[in-house]
């Protein structure tokens, strides 16, 4: 607030873009003068003048500050009047003009500290210096995705805003010619019926990321308990929630010192690391896969050979053979699809560059994640055939059945309003404004709904899809904008019985990409211990992991050597005439023993029968 700035001080430091430029005795006068000049457009409106807590004046004009426009208030009255607005509507006045005349000021974070900003006209007092252009601007882009967000709990809005980032949509219109490494695209994206002003500002209508679902708030045979969703099979067949996953692979003909080059070709059988012939079946003569071929995991997309890693490799028979290495690009494990496009180009270094774009259509399946814009997320629990789904009097079958238990504890009243709003919009054939604080009033929507012959509370008589009987309760049904989120089961499903192990520890690898196992972690271990399941614990941690049998010298207690060819064992320290026992242990422990030796610790193993020590 202005009152904080003293009229007179001994010396007040003045900084320009962080540089000390001098002192001033009357900071208030200085600031007011500067702001006056700014409002007259003598100083650029993007310059900010701030008085900080330490009593210093900062004049900033450098780049990188976030600025936001606020309506200037004078004596409790906004300087931007109806007159101005009228002129703007007629086109007699422009935004630039308003700004240059100082009716609207740009604030940065520092200058904002000296202001008192009113949210709307009703709360204006004489103390206020500025007013928001519209109250919804206090929310960011993502929060403004949520319609009627002022009716929701803050945590739900946060959740909804965060989830809208994971929604699949039409992210751009030139997706056909792009070669993104990985990308999801919603096939039939729709504009939301209930939208907000914030959405219009970011052109959400042109790049939407969801569809308008007919949602009934009804339980369905327990298949939608605990946030699961029941979805209509016929809707899916009509294209609801259908998306495409694109992945691009690339290969480059690199040049190596010494004139050696990579070659994009169908690898010869002589090539080192040649995979089975089957893998190369889709490759054309040029070594690149043909478009529209259907590929599965580990299929080769681009055949490529590289020069041998070490020149002049001496083979077993003393002959120097130069075998090229196989370095083809294959489809990732667990993925597959149809080849969409093959791009031939040149890299920056002038090498031949091949990009192959693969498409994988994704029809929603059980386990795919969907969410409304109010933080109400869930996975599909059941896909119900349309003939078994409940229907309304007019024969409408909901696309989605949401469990009523999802509503009360989360208090997402916004979603309920959206349901009614969506229904009104769909019936009247218009968009509904759901902007925070200023959206269409509930009463109006209810009235309009009644005019269309519906109940004003959005409830309808519903008939059981299987028996055809009328349900005793009336069901809340309407249109809600739902987003398909990028977490899909096909990307996550995995299983392993046998598989690769790490070289160092001989324990199973981790992660889906490496065909890894699932970790039995510290806390899971504690659970098995707590249950006293000692043998299960041993099985998980030893037998199914890094079990090894190690020869141990009973004399020195160190790892001995077992010669398999001659089938005899000896100790490298004590020689051959010692008892050597084979001990079962985890390889990680053997590694620990080795590491201790490197620390100059002598880890002597004292052997005995179980429980004998």
């Amino acid at each position, binding site marked *: 607030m202005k009152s904080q700035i003293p009229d007179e001080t001994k010396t007040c430091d003045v900084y320009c873009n962080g540089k000390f430029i001098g002192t001033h005795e009357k900071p208030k006068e200085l600031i007011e003068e500067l702001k006056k000049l700014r409002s007259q457009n003598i100083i650029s409106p993007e310059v900010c003048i701030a008085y900080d807590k330490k009593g210093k004046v900062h004049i900033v004009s450098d780049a990188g500050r976030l600025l936001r426009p606020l309506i200037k208030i004078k004596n409790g009255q906004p300087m931007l009047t109806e007159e101005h607005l009228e002129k703007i509507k007629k086109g007699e006045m422009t935004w630039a003009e308003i700004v240059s005349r100082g009716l609207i000021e740009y604030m940065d974070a520092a200058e904002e500290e000296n202001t008192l900003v009113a949210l709307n006209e009703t709360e204006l007092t004489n103390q206020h210096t500025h007013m928001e252009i519209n109250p919804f601007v206090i929310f960011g882009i993502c929060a403004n995705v949520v319609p009627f967000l002022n009716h929701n709990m803050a945590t739900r809005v946060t959740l909804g805003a965060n989830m809208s980032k994971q929604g699949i949509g039409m992210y751009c219109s030139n997706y056909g010619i792009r070669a993104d490494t990985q990308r999801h695209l919603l096939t039939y994206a729709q504009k939301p019926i209930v939208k907000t002003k914030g959405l219009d500002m970011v052109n959400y209508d042109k790049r939407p990321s969801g569809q308008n679902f007919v949602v009934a708030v009804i339980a369905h045979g327990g298949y939608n308990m605990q946030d699961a969703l029941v979805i209509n099979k016929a809707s899916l067949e009509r294209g609801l929630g259908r998306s495409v996953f694109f992945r691009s692979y690339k290969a480059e003909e690199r040049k190596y010192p010494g004139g050696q080059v990579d070659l994009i070709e169908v690898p010869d059988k002589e090539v080192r690391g040649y995979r089975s012939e089957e893998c190369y079946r889709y490759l054309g003569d040029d070594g690149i896969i043909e478009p529209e071929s259907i590929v599965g995991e580990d299929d080769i997309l681009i055949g490529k050979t590289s020069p041998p890693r070490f020149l002049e490799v001496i083979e077993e028979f003393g002959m120097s053979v130069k075998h090229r290495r196989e370095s083809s690009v294959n489809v990732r494990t667990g993925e597959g699809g149809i080849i969409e496009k093959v791009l031939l180009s040149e890299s920056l270094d002038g090498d031949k560059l091949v990009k192959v774009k693969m498409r994988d259509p994704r029809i929603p399946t059980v386990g795919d994640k969907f969410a409304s814009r109010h933080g109400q997320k869930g996975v599909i629990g059941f896909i119900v055939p349309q003939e078994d789904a409940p229907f309304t009097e007019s024969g409408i079958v909901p696309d989605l059945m949401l469990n009523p238990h999802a509503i009360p504890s989360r208090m997402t009243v916004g979603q309920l309003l959206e349901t009614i709003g969506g229904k009104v919009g769909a019936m009247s054939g218009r968009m509904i404004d759901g902007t925070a604080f200023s959206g269409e009033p509930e009463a109006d929507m209810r009235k309009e709904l009644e005019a269309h012959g519906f109940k004003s509370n959005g409830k309808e008589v519903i008939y059981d899809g299987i028996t055809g009987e009328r349900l005793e309760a009336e069901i809340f049904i309407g249109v809600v904008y739902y987003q398909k989120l990028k977490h899909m089961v096909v990307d996550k499903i995995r299983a392993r019985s046998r598989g690769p192990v790490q070289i160092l520890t001989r324990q199973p690898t981790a992660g889906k990409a490496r065909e890894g196992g699932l970790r039995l972690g510290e806390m899971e271990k504690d659970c098995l*211990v707590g249950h006293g399941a000692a043998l299960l614990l041993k099985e998980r941690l030893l037998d199914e992991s890094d079990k090894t049998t190690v020869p141990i010298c009973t004399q020195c207690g160190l790892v001995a050597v077992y010669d398999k060819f001659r089938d005899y064992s000896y100790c490298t320290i004590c020689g051959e005439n010692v008892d050597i026992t084979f001990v079962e242990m985890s390889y*990680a*422990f053997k590694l620990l023993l080795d590491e*201790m030796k490197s620390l100059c610790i002598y880890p002597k193993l004292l052997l005995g029968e179980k429980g004998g020590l």
Partner: protein
Amino acid sequence: MTTEVQKMIEEKNADLPLIVIKKLEKKLESGKLKKKDLGKVMDRVMDVYEKAKIEPGEGVGVLAAQSIGEPGTQMMMRTKHYAGTAMDVTKGLPRLIEIFDARRTPKTPMMTVHLTKEYNTAEKAEALAHSIKETQIRHIAKSLKLDFLKYRIVIDLNKEELKKRGLTPKVLETIIKEKFEKQASLEKDTLIIKAPKKVASVLQKLRGEVLKTHLSGIKGVTYVVIQKEDRNYMVYTQGTNLPDILNVKGIDPKKTKTNDIKEIERVFGIEAARHMLVEETKDTLKDAGLVVDYRHVSLVSDAMCADGAIKAIGRHGISGSKASVLARASFEETVKHLLKASAYGEVDGLKGVVENIIVGQVIALGTGVPELIMKTEEKKSKK
């Protein structure tokens, strides 16, 4: 005199805890349990008691850890306020951590003072509470000036405050003179204390010393709250000083306690401290609305007090002083523990859980406990 129950116990060779026996006796006395049914009831009681016992090989430690740890995740950061006063006490998770970490001093030390029967009235409780509260010079000073010309401190006394705290200028004078001897003098309402050396820094130092001079009450008690619970008046204090409060007349030394467990250990010994650990943990959990079985808490407290001094749970306490080298090394500071163990030539008997998991053996817990023992022919012949 042996009761019916005791006779029956001898007859059936039953092993029942005292509390159960007493309950049975009470029921028998009240007539709810008839004599002819005693045998049947006893059988059932023995059966139930046997089932309630922990079986050999149960992993009680892990169970205790999980049973306290899981509800702990639900606890919030909370401070309890004493009815409209400025005093607050750490509760919830921070307090639980504080207890198990065996901090030297709690974040909000406090005493719960119970009163004897004679003092259990509002006026007497009030008077006692005021006498407990510590008064230092800074509490009764209206203003304090450092006189750098004469190298002395001039304090204007607040007469009202003095009266409120039950002090007279005369009492004050004797206390002051005792501490500062000839340097101090009291003239009407001003207290003058001369610096021993005419150096500015000495005077500055003296200022702090003077302000903190203890006049009356119990050292460390900065705030008192009186509350009536049921029919008893209780005094809660901010700050703790158990040895001193035990000498105050009117308090019930058997019930008066502090939340500073280390102080309990110093004053009453390890058994009291163990008991206090249990009580404090139970109270904290109960306060957060969580139910944890007494046995889990008592096991943890036993583990903390097992070797005569309170040991924290964690690196500096129990986990850091485990018998097994491998168990210690797997916890924290691996190399340090390994090197130390090798220097002393320690032997790991592989008796615990962690060690056996590292090595890859069946742990000696649960299904890992039973073993098959067979007498071989060889041994038989020796007999």
